[in-house]
């Protein structure tokens, strides 16, 4: 069954089972490898994308549940004003180490700022605790979100 999905402003036709996770369609079918696989169970947040602006774990999102929703991935988040601000803050604050989880962190953080332009520490905890960073960059992620919010 061919499905049409909207990713980063483009329409793609993909021929996979309807229960295939969005993550694998993005990575293996469309070649958008910026979105990462970490756990496959929505436990780590590495696969976070935006579906109509909502932060969504693509590893447990079946492709046939997407419909005509607009999917935004790390490859295109820099085209939004908030995404660009987050990316800049991430570089300014030298957040990144191995970087593998950071696509997901940036997607979660930009969704947070879109809904709460001036997040409190508790807001940051709520929005970001689903994203694991094994390099332990949490201190700097928090600082970078605050910088992006104030800038």
């Amino acid at each position: 069954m061919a499905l049409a999905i909207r990713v980063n402003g483009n329409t793609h036709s993909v021929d996979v089972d309807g229960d295939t996770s969005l993550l694998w369609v993005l990575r293996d079918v469309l070649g958008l490898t910026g979105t990462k696989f970490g756990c496959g169970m929505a436990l780590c947040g590495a696969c976070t994308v935006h579906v109509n602006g909502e932060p969504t774990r693509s590893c447990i999102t079946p492709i046939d549940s997407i419909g005509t929703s607009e999917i935004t991935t790390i490859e295109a988040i820099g085209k939004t004003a908030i995404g660009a601000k987050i990316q800049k803050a991430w570089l300014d604050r030298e957040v990144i180490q191995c970087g593998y989880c950071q696509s997901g962190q940036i997607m979660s953080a930009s969704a947070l700022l879109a809904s709460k332009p001036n997040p409190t520490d508790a807001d940051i905890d709520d929005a970001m605790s689903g994203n694991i960073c094994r390099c332990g960059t949490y201190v700097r992620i928090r600082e970078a979100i605050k910088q992006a919010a104030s800038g």
Partner: protein
Amino acid sequence: MVIDHHASRTTRLGEVPSANVLSRRGFLQVGAAAGGGLMLSLSLPFGNREANAADTFVPNAFIRIGSDGQIVLIMPYVEMGQGTYTSIPMLIAEELEVDLKQVRLEHAPPNEKLYANPLLGVQATGNSNAIRGAWQPLRQAGAAARTMLVAAAAKKWNVDPASCRAQSGEVLHPPTGRSIKYGALAADAAGMPVPEKIALKRPQDFKLIGTPAKRLDTPAKVNGTAVYGIDVRPSGVKIATLAQSPVFGGRVKSVDDSAAKIVKGVRQIVRLDDAVAVVADHMGAAKKGLAALKIEWDDGPHAKLTTEDIARELDQAALRSGAVAQTIGDVDKAMASAVTKVEALYHAPFLAHAAMEPMNCTVHLRKDECEIWVGSQAMARVQAMAAKAAGLSPEKVIVHNHLLGGGFGRRLEADGAVRAVQIAQHVDGPVKVVWTREEDIQHDMYRPYWVDRISAGLDAKGRPVAWNNRFAGSSVIARWLPPGFKNGLDPDSTEGAIDLVYDLPNFRVEYIRVEPPGIPTAFWRSVGPSHNVFVTESFVDELAAAAKQDAVGFRRALLDKSPRARAVLDLAAEKSDWVKPLPNGSGRGGSLQSAFGSYLAQVAEVEVSKNGAVRVRRLVCAVDCGTVVNPDTVQAQIQSGFIFGTTAALYGEITLKDGRVEQSNFDTYQMLRMNEAPAIEVHIVNSQEPPGGIGETGTSAIVPAIANAIFAATGKRLRKMPVDPAVLKKPT
């Protein structure tokens, strides 16, 4: 001469001669680069984990100065988040007098013929040794290139080289105001004699070293363009995932793949001796196919194995005498005359690495050649082991290294590459083998389980007069680098247990190697010290308590011979408000570590709830890691190590039941998260000693500080990690 990295580590920087004699057969060779320009080939030393073949010149790093002025560094150390891709180029840029932005890094040889196989000669990144190894040779190479560029300009202008100087990527002749860029000089410089004596910059003249340089690898990591091993997509690549025998040493008995074969996108099922893989168009289909397989396993000899069996064996082994790692004075005599004796039994669990990028490897096996794409800490090992698995000679195996989504020691192993080759032998075309998180955790090679029996005697004033530590566990070196295991000992298993900073007049440490049945063990971030520092620094705290002394004051009194250790301890105590009281249920604990060539003192502040839940609130570190190349990276690595160690202290444990690893994903093998992350302060001591390692230090150092803080908060001594809230729960 071949630069001896161990000698350079122990030499005070101020005493390093300002000139070093270089030989063409030594660590550096210079010549013309293909396409014009200057090419320097150098041999960088690796740490004690890799045998250095010093009798022949085998370059493993290259610096090319092109006629366009671009400086390209091709180096053997890999980037796994520790900042090596920034700090190593800083060393060259400093001596070469160029902007850091002018130095470009290349992962793999762009020209197979030019670089041929020596690049893969001896290669591994681990043991926090990149900066330690590169510190002298890379600066010397940069200085040699600068000298030759200056000589080329002086010849062109027909002036004395001493009247010229290098600055910002060009050579200047101040008397006449002339200047010429490196690019225009590179080809001529290649014909200049290699300088016999090279003057390195004095530390006070450093422009880059010691400044917080921006990382070079990060812009690609914020927009999804960075390519990790798992991201490679050679043309026509298929995706495979696998189920390996749930019991180590088990085999496949039977496979019913009828349901898997009809899953849309599944191409083939590969049955191996001890694993089954599903090859598909995409990972979604491969996983669905895997779930549809009916596999019957023969669990083999370890079918009933439990963690308790292993712990019991180690407990028993630690009763026997072992190989003596260090002995000072007469421990037995001193112990007999001690006024107070303290004895304890410590346990450290198996731990998985759980790098965020699950294990993966892409292989294209052709008739007489094998191409591999992977993110590895040890490319040469990947090449050698893949060649063996494929039945090819190593030079027929091409390894493309990519960014690592975390290494932590896991990617010093080549088991994933071997597995991918075994699968690729059944697949026509390239195949990317991706492990699920469950496979990654259940088929890791684990930080060993260790048991320590430790005792000490105190005199009437509470000063330790005897120290006796005997521990049992796996030796990773004995498997990974067999020549490194000698007389029952290896340098990794004992680091952090011997050569303590404290003045202990009667001291003995013994090690008993015991390999757990069936369980593969491996290096894990902070390696030997990950358990030794936990035991030693927890036990020092026990002694302070037995002596009824303040834990910082007790340590301080033993540091007369270790001024660097005493300085970091004092600084950490001051910055952490050590003497300031905390509310009930909270506590501070300290630890002091000398490992990887660096000194760390840290204070943890914890809060323990009535139900025993531990919250780590604040971590304060004072660090002396010698000359700091990139202070921001030092900060970042200690923050990182502290989170890694806090995760281990609070949650880290791999257990076995019926031969199977009981944990499988981040729900059962938990990681510290944003809402639990403590505040972290890092204070760097100004030092001109040679650089020490930093990537692993925080991990081992913080675990005992947390255990000691829990003791301060609750009066309960935790001798087994991770923290068990049931033990700390207040009776109701």
